[in-house]
């Protein structure tokens, strides 16, 4: 005979419901005799460091951006599936010292002459999915569809934030900050040349 594990549970629940009804009927003032419990906390698992490396990125402007990305799948006979997520990311604009040549800073008496690369996005990986949140969900969504939404949020954020205005603002702040820093170090004249940024986001 075939074993039916779910039958046992159904019978068990039916028994509890029957007991509850009997006790209520007898006027005993019975409370609900069962409750369902499930945990919401994640398990304890180890975290592995993939790499820890030296970098030299000087950030002069940060743009925190949130984008609502919405996607819909239409069906013929039933309501369409819909997923809306709010992606959160911080785009950091600045100078990467890896792109500087060895003579990016030269000194002549009380003058410091700085020749810096263009202001650019410091890290292409800027979306914080842990801070992104679900807004609306109906239906089932595949990993490919979720990945596609992530990519779309990334493209959209870059288009909105990497504007010539923001790059110019970052460049102006770079000049202000570096001039102040080198004046603090004792240089009265600070000449700063920053390579022009590309217009592409």
């Amino acid at each position, binding site marked *: 005979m075939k074993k039916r594990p779910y039958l046992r*549970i159904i019978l*068990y629940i039916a028994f509890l419901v029957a*007991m509850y009804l009997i006790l209520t009927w007898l006027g005993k003032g019975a409370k609900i*005799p*069962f409750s*369902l*419990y*499930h*945990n919401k*906390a*994640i*398990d304890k*698992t180890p975290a*592995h*460091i*993939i790499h*820890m490396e*030296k970098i*030299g990125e*000087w*950030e*002069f*402007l*940060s743009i925190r951006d*949130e*984008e*609502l*990305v*919405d*996607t*819909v*799948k*239409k*069906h*013929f*006979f039933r309501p*369409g599936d819909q997923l809306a997520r709010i992606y959160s990311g911080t785009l950091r604009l*600045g100078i990467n010292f890896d792109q500087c040549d060895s003579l990016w800073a030269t*000194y002549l008496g009380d003058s410091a002459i700085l020749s810096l690369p263009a202001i650019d996005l*410091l890290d292409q990986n800027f*979306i*914080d*999915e*842990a*801070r992104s*949140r*679900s807004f609306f*969900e109906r239906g*089932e969504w595949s*990993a490919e569809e*979720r990945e596609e939404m992530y990519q779309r949020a990334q493209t959209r954020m870059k288009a*909105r*934030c990497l504007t010539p205005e*923001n790059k110019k*603002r970052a460049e102006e*702040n770079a000049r202000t900050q570096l001039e*102040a*820093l080198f004046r*603090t170090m*004792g240089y009265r004249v600070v000449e700063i040349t920053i390579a022009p940024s590309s217009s592409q986001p």
Partner: protein
Amino acid sequence: MRSIKYFVLSTLLCTTACRQKENISEVPTSQDDTTLLIQRISEQSRLYTTECLVHKIVTHDDVLRLQGSILGMKYDHALDLGDRKIAIPIDVTLKAYIDFSSFDEGNVEKKDGFIHITLPDPEVEVTASKVEHKQVRQYTGFLRSRYSDSEMSDFTRQGVESIIQSLPEMGLIQKARENAATLLMPIIQRMGYEADHIVITFRNDLEKTSPVPTPMEGGTILLNYPTQP
């Protein structure tokens, strides 16, 4: 009786036909949209010196339990078909930086050919986190629904928070101090100072970071990471 059988059969055929059509219509008719919600711009002066990529598999084991008491007898029974599990692999990028926005004359001291620079202590920030969607696995029992997008987002957030809690064990602050010194030393040397005439210290400790950095303990971990999204 025969007419009832024909009716049931025709209904089944009709339903199957409709279901096939529904599957076909799923592929081409998707619509996408993006909307800007918030954009906050702020001027900074932060020197990021260390990057750390951490991988974690966030797991959640959700056993549905039937608990209660009946006629004074307590019971706690795990429902075999009410179990569900999920594994979410995440990659988290942490970066340590020195904030130069409040750096001024008070941080630089020159005396007898020596230069002593006091830097603010490194701070750590989560700059990115990414779910490996294609590697997510979930198993759902007969009595349970699949994990929702909202639940998965919550587990991802909890995973990042647990990584932040384990930060002191990673030695990121110590590495950030060493890297900051390594980055700044050549710049100061080009100003005309001998390597052994340069002293770099950090505000929150008294240990000196000289050309060959010495091991240091402690440090401040400042994370602007919200506990709630």
